[in-house]
């Protein structure tokens, strides 16, 4: 096979390559004549136009078949996620550290809460209705304006001491901070099976150690009339109900690990793969 693998010098290789790019004798540009390049390009152009057309057609018919109000499947949304405000992330998950004597360290946190609650002012909620019944607010018809469904009002004053109205600092300087717990929305999810789900905060790994907590609204429940959620298109003004947690007696200068779970039928908080499903864990350290 000596004939097939003779060694070529670098200049020969370059010459061969140059010849490949443009061969003046055969008028070949990169192995083809120019007209041949035009033909092959046209062929590929046509091929891709057809293929893109087919693809567009598939996506078009997909969008024609999907339901605009609710997704066909909710395979990953078996149980809602839970989030915390203020949300400051450290090395491993949520980590809220502040110093009562240094205003700057907690003002940031307070601002986060205030900004978050602007969506819950009466003005922001004026399109929503007041609900009183403590049961699921099931709507089979579109009773709202513009062919929508109605949403229940949730205003920040329902959070009482943690509403930011009476105490604009949310208790942070006193070392009795307020945290807001929110449950993610899932369409047509009925949490608690008739009883309102409630928030329960404990120390991580030591549930018997008492943690003095005030929940707002009372008992830390999410009222059932906020459920089910009918989706963005049906309930454009829907806002998630909140529960505020005020820690009353926290040891200073120690990192505390706290978990707030949502207790209620249909909400799981023991999924090892998802730390934010049905619960939220965070580290808290108050220095003075």
């Amino acid at each position, binding site marked *: 096979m000596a004939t097939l693998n003779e060694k070529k010098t670098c200049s020969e290789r370059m010459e061969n390559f140059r010849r490949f790019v443009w061969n003046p004798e055969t008028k070949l540009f990169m192995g083809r004549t120019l007209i041949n390049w035009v033909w092959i390009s046209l062929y590929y152009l046509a091929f891709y136009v057809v293929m893109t057309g087919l693809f567009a057609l598939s996506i078009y018919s997909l969008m024609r078949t*999907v339901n605009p109000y609710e997704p066909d499947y909710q395979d990953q949304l078996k149980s809602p996620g839970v989030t915390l405000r203020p949300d400051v992330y450290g090395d491993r998950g949520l980590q809220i550290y502040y110093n009562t004597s240094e205003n700057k360290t907690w003002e940031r946190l307070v601002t986060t809460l205030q900004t978050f609650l602007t969506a819950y002012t009466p003005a922001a909620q004026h399109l929503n209705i007041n609900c009183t019944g403590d049961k699921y607010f099931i709507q089979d018809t579109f009773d709202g304006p513009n062919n929508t469904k109605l949403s229940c009002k949730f205003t920040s004053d329902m959070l009482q001491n943690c509403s930011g109205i009476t105490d604009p600092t949310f208790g942070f300087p006193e070392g009795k901070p307020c945290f807001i717990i929110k449950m993610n929305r899932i369409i047509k999810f009925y949490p608690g099976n008739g009883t309102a789900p409630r928030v329960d905060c404990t120390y991580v790994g030591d549930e018997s150690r008492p943690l003095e907590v005030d929940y707002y609204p009372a008992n830390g429940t999410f009222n059932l009339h906020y459920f089910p959620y009918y989706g963005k298109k049906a309930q454009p003004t829907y806002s998630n109900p909140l529960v505020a947690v005020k820690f009353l007696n926290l040891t200073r200068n120690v990192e505390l690990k706290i978990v707030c779970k949502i207790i209620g039928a249909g909400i799981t908080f023991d999924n090892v793969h998802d730390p934010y499903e049905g619960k939220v864990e965070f580290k808290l350290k108050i220095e003075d």
Partner: protein
Amino acid sequence: MKKEMDVDDHKLELPDLEAKYSTSITKGLVGAVAAERLLRDGPNELRPPRGTPECVKFGRQLAGGLQCLMWVAAAICLIAYGVQEGQGDRGSADNLYLAIALIAVVVVTGCFGYYQEFKSTNIIASFKNLVPQQATVIREGDKLQINANELVVGDLVEIKGGDRVPADIRIISAQGCKVDNSSLTGESEPQTRSPECTHDSPLETRNIAFFSTMCLEAGPHPDTQASPAGTATGLVINTGDRTIIGRIASLASGVENEKTPIAIEIEHFVDIIAGLAIFFGATFFVVAMVIGYPFLRAMVFFMAIVVAYVPEGLLATVTVCLSLTAKRLARKNCVVKNLEAVETLGSTSVICSDKTGTLTQNRMTVAHLWFDNQIHTADTTEDQSGQSFDQSSETWTLLSRVVTLCNRAQFKAGQENIPVAKREVIGDASETALLKFAEVTVGTVSEARGRFPKVAELPFNSTNKFQLSVHAAGDRQLLVLKGAPERVLERCSTVMIKGQELPLDAQWREAFEGAYADLGGRGERVLGFCARWLPAGTVAAGTDPEALPEVAVGLCFAGLVAMIDPPRATVPRAVLKCRTAGIRVIMVTGDHPITAKAIAAAVGIISEGSETPEDVAARLRVPLEQVDPRQARARVVTGAELAGMEPGVLEGILRAHPEMVFARTSPQQKLVIVESCQRLGAIVAVTGDGVNDSPALKRADIGVAMGIAGSDAAKNAADMILLDDNFASIVTGVEQGRLIFDNLKKSIAYTLTKNIPELTPYLIYITASVPLPLGCITILFIELCTDIFPSVSLAYERAESDIMHLKPRNPRRDRLVNEPLAAYSYFQIGAIQSFAGFTDYFVAMAQEGWWPLLCLGLRPRWEDTHEQELQDSYGQQWTFEQRRYQQYTCYTVFFISIEMCQIADVLIRKTRRLSLLQQGLFRNHILVIAIVFQVSIGCFLCYCPGMPNIFNFMPIRFQWWFVPMPFGLLILIYDEIRKLGVRRHPGSWWDRELYY
């Protein structure tokens, strides 16, 4: 390297020789001197060729082009893991996981390759068997038995029949010593060894016996007083690696192992793939950097693109396909040592075949008889199935009696139940042939000999050139004589024609000359037979044999018997098949030109009507010099002519004459012939059996050794071994080799296609920032798990046309992977598969709540581990982990899409030109099983519990399996249209661009 041997010891007189080696030809060496020389020259044994250390071989398997890329990818993964771990990032264990997977892939495929190589190099132990165990040596006047490896130059040794010659020996005295040089020169005729220098060339002269050749056992002489034959004493002139055989062995190991065409093809193509992978990776690395990704992310993209683009399973597929064919060949008596040789055989354009044993049966057989002034043809078939001649003539009775009686060969005992042709015989080749011939045509020889007991005998010798014996026959004595025809005729006064004794006049002499020349011209060895009735008591028992010739005059000529080593029955068909397949068969033999030419003509290497320049000269009655070589298709070149040729002349001859026979060639010349063919661009297969063939076997693109007759050295140097020594098996090999080339092409096309749907997800991911549609682990599963079996199953595909009617492929032009193949696989079928994957991806995303437009640009928030409430198109909020499982769902959906399209792909790859319906959709059962297997694996990966967290496969909704099916159907239809165009318009633009 190719220098002829430069030994001149055969020309020296004995005293000079004694002086040269400071020894004594009577007493031998002094022990101390011998010990000193042993220390100086080393033991008298062949050093096995030095092999590459095992660890280096293994290392090479881990450091191929693709493997290096994988190492780089693994390193990037590890770095990314380290950095992300340092930053306390969640989910970075994926990178560690991937790095381990990549390293495992490289190591496992490396082990696989190493195992294959290990198996192929260890089939045959090396030159060990060549070394004789014991030798009789005379030192200080005493006869000693020592280990042959302790022999030194100057030692005086004795050899006798049945021994292997322990070193290169200059014969000092000999009695009836014959050696079998066939392992060295390929000549099967035993050679007499005697003290005289008979030739300038050390290889031809009689007074040198070579290391490792056999000293033959002499025939039995129960009733003669002849001196014990088959002994010799000689002086050791060369030992170990300096012997002729040692030099040939080192010549063999000095010849570099050539890369096989398929290895070159694969290398060529791996280089391109690796280059493209780096090109794509680097391009998107730059694109990612420009778009504003951090450096580390861009590196991870680079890694992912490399993993997506490199066909990890390809080398394994090729190896498995080749070993399947090797297995298939093994069932047909071709054992392939080097897997890649399978394909080499398919691209072979020249076969340099040995004559003896490969083309012929390697046994002297009576081919023709001349009696009653007529040439009769004997049956030369291996199984005695041919036609016999008319045996009614009385001349035949006499001739057969002479043949039976004037013969010293005899069957070994206890072989009555074995067919005559297979019985073992004590005696030389021609006597064996005559014995077997007599046994078959006349009946039990021993019985006939019993009826005519031998009275006296004169064995054959080179001065008389005949052999005679006198037998008692009742009240008369029968003198029978056979020998060289002209010598026999000298002693005859009558000739027997149809039972009548007629005077031997000029007319009969002319008839005799004619018949003799005719048979001799057929390359046959001719013996004359005659007899005479004597009155009882003419020759007394115990008469001096030397007195016998005086009695043997005025004999009656019975006939001529011509013998030849006949061609194997299957060979002419095989040679014809080679011819139709565009393969040139060249005969290279150590035998006589006339015999070589006759056999070549008999098997069709020289076809009917072809003439050599000599034939043309004879026909036109002009001198040889005036013959235009172009008039002669055939040519016989002898070793002597070859030795006198200028470099380059041989190439010219090979080009000018399509039918070539080389006779009387030496091992070096065989090498030169092979190299000349290779310089003409041919892929050369060489067959051989002797040690002398091993350099050529090694130099050849594919060396084929004979399993039965082959020496270990030949088997060691060869790439393939024919277990039945049959040339026809090579043709089977060629057919299989061509088929596997076609099928490998299909297999590779299949394997390459899916690299595009594996690559495009990353490209779209980087440029359009959609959530990642396909993960690296999933890609590895496609490459190494689900798609291996279907791609291997294509090796079982039958040929689309009669591949043995095509010319051998041109290794420069007909590449394994050509531009149309790559373009069609990548940019057409691969593109359709990508569209299928993305359609399914968007369906799965939209049905779970993420509409296509939302997906675009979603990536930064989607992958933000701190984002636990990302809203989908319906306003639902997702945690990071929920999104991650959704992403795995996408991986799985994309995976299933590729699998569905690959089913269509494997179906279209069954044929390159024919319609699928012409080829038969389900005729390749293995392929059907492979598809079922592929789907089952897909189901297992999707629906086995625990998969989401181990291999990132999610149990996807059943209907998502169907989304890519229309695209699969599109692939089938599109390819049928392509094939239709290719069939309808051969040579058109369509054919050039779309036929691979």
